[in-house]
């Protein structure tokens, strides 16, 4: 095996091992941390980064070891890096909404509730449903 081939092999292996480790660490954090707001950190950061490493490793593998020229792994990475914050934001909103609705399963984290933005505004979730209204939103 030539020197350059060995170097590429080492790079691919390191990226695969690092990426898989980060994915495992993210999932472990989701199991271990106490409340939902903390549990969001693991999947949205560590797991996404780990998957980025795996995808770059696969791109190197198919480009240098197999002789093809493939870039479409970057498409998956780009898509994931765009969508991970959006899903995290939506899940945090669900958590705030469930807290406001008084769900027993949702517990506020050690940091407590997030601060209320100002006098008139509030977080972009909805109030607890009123008993009489059709759609209970915060448009009151």
């Amino acid at each position, binding site marked *: 095996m030539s020197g350059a081939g060995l170097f590429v092999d080492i790079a691919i292996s390191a990226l695969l091992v690092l990426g898989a480790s980060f994915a495992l660490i993210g999932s472990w954090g*989701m199991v271990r941390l106490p409340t939902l707001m903390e549990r969001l950190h693991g999947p949205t950061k560590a797991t996404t980064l780990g998957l980025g490493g*795996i995808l770059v490793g696969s791109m190197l593998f198919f480009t240098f070891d197999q002789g093809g020229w493939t870039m479409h792994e970057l498409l998956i990475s780009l898509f994931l890096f765009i*969508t991970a914050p959006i899903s995290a934001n939506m899940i945090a909103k669900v958590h705030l909404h469930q807290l406001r609705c008084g769900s027993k399963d949702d517990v506020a984290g050690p940091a407590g509730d997030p601060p209320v933005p100002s006098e008139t505004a509030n977080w972009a979730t909805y109030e607890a449903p009123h008993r009489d209204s059709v759609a209970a939103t915060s448009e009151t």
Partner: protein
Amino acid sequence: MIAYAVLFAFVCLSLALALNLWRLLKGPSVGDRIVALDTMVINAIGLIIVIGIATVNDIFYEAALLLAMVGFIGTVAYCKFLLRGDIVE
């Protein structure tokens, strides 16, 4: 060397999927289950990519790309349903 790295990645991602499944079953809140499903989709994408490397097959990327899109849309749909009681208003 790549074979050993692929084996290690298989073990790590399978373990991660098992941990996600534990969180999915345990809960306790609905948000936890949504996070668990979202992470399961991400880990499944990684697993598919590693299978593609192990079998030296280019066809797995389309599956991974499709799973990435469908998983994101599923997560957003769950969240919208919990927030509004409706998905497409």
